[in-house]
């Protein structure tokens, strides 16, 4: 399992108090005949170094909110600033640049490119950051070592287990040294032991100062975060600091290893 020794890849963030600052954000979807009001005035501040779990049932608006945080979508009204920059007014290519440099994505379905090696998958964001070839490879190798896949760099996604694929995805999310890692149901396709292994990586990264936002509908997963925000009907219903937060490493010790 990964021992996250390469803490240097997670850079110290600039001295901005709130990495994310969302103020009274609304989002409507115009579906022709009906209008869907997905977010009804959401305000949320996330400080540097936080590990926030966003919970809610489907239709609660958490996915919409995640898309906004990920700069994949724009709010209908309200303000969203990331690292002190108002991103609600930026154009598409500026948003692409922000996604590339400031944000790291981890998805439920891993979303790796098929028939592309682990190393090349991890290199992809550096390609769009227009780094030179040596730098790209060096960074990608470092990121893969961080998630404990230094010996699997030339493997294709089809040759890796689900947990390994998700670790490649995490390495890809980290390779451009983002301010935040956004994880959308990252354990949704994984068995419980592998899920905890992934959460251990998140906790380790967070310990090194990386801000993490994790979307999940499972309380078992959310409990590993430092703060839990619950969405319902497009609004934030609860926003608590986690109590009795378990360490994934400890949980893993108690879990039986599944032999198959």
């Amino acid at each position, binding site marked *: 399992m990964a021992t996250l020794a390469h803490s240097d890849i997670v850079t110290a963030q600039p001295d901005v108090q709130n990495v994310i600052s969302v103020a009274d954000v609304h989002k409507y979807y115009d579906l022709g005949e009906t209008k869907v009001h997905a977010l009804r005035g959401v305000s949320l501040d996330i400080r540097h170094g936080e590990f926030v779990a966003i919970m809610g049932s489907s239709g609660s608006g958490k996915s919409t909110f995640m898309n906004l945080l990920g700069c994949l979508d724009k709010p209908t009204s309200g303000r969203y600033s990331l690292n002190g920059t108002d991103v609600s007014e930026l154009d598409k290519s500026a948003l692409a640049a922000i*996604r590339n440099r400031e944000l790291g994505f981890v998805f439920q379905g891993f979303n790796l490119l098929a028939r592309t090696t682990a190393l090349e998958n991890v290199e992809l964001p550096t390609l769009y950051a227009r780094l030179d070839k040596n730098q790209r490879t060096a960074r990608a190798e470092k990121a893969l070592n961080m998630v404990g896949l230094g010996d699997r760099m030339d493997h294709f996604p089809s040759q890796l287990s689900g947990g390994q694929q998700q670790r490649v995805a995490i390495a890809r999310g980290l390779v451009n040294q983002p301010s935040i890692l956004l994880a959308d149901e990252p354990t949704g396709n994984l068995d419980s032991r592998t899920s905890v292994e992934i959460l251990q990586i998140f906790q380790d990264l967070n310990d090194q100062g990386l801000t993490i936002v994790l979307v999940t509908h499972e309380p078992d997963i959310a409990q590993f975060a430092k703060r839990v925000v619950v969405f319902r009907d497009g609004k934030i219903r609860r926003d608590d600091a986690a109590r009795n937060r378990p360490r994934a490493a400890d949980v893993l010790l108690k879990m039986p290893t599944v032999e198959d």
Partner: protein
Amino acid sequence: MEFAAILKIAFRALARNKMRSVLTMLGIIIGVGAVIAMVGVGQGAQQKVQDQIASMGTNLLFISSGTVTRGGLHMGWGQTKTLIYDDMKAIQREIPTVAKAAPGSGTSAQVVFENQNWYTRVNGTEPQYFDIRDWPIAAGSSFSQDDVTQSANVAVIGETVRQNLYGATDPIGTTIRIGTLPFQVVGVLAAKGQSGMGQDQDDTVVVPITTLQKKITGQNWLQFIMISATSQPATYAAQQQITLLLRDRHRIRPGTDDDFFVRNLADVAELADQSSRVMTLLLASIAGVSLIVGGIGIMNIMLVSVTERTREIGIRMAIGATEQDVQRQFLSESVVLSLIGGAIGIVFGVGSSFVITKTLGWNVLISPMAIVAAVVFSMAVGIFFGFYPARKAAHLDPIEALRFE
């Protein structure tokens, strides 16, 4: 994104669906190949026509006797008896742009050597006729001006006649009969092949004009005069001056038709050249259509590819690819596809135009211009037909694309 990286992605994407890529390329291969082959064939034909025209002689003017109307009936060219030897002398004397002139008249006759015989065209002329027509003597020599003065029974035979009468025997010094008269063969003409009109120019026997007129036909008028002008541009002036001079000599009143006919070979050449150029253009544009069809094939397959790879596009966008990055990626795929197709098409086209022109016995003409044009055109096809699918890819909504199954 840097160029090398874009190219690498494009190659890999194409290699992923080898069969499909090859089939798509085939459209461009056939298109480019057809354009090059057809232009090659067209230009070969053009060259062939030009060679044939050049084989008739240089700066050539051809004066023939005119038509007669008898009882309202046109009797065709070469019927009037007004074109005479003195006309030729007058032309030579009075028109400075005329370099050489040779009279001509002919008939068809049976030619016999020993037990062989051949029915051919017997032409009477003067020795400079061979110069005017750029027609070298392959063996022996031409008859002389003295032979003309003395109406000597000497003959120069064409290659076809030699083959049919002599086979392997050396004809020089032998005696043939033309009709009933014996003639000594003094020379054999070099083979000239078919004329632009498809006539075998080598199927002829040439004798002094005086011998023909006095001893064979008994006519004292000429059927044609061949003139070589001092230069190509001079042919046009000479043509006009000859017309004026002959009208004057033949006392043709203004408003009445000429009783002769002056043709400038440059006009004929230009006409033939033009028609073969039109043919080349026609062939090339038909081939061009297949290139466009190939381009549509590329567009089709790129659209399929964009749909198939919607999720990949979503991933790339999520991790920071801009619309331009995505557009460039797909555009480079279609350009790579069409350029490789174009390169193979060039090989294919050059090869097939070799085969075609060899089969037809023409010179192979592969113009570098056609190859450059084919490369540029196939690249343009790639960009043009790749643009819409690439734009479609670039304008995908990343959220929708990521959700795509």
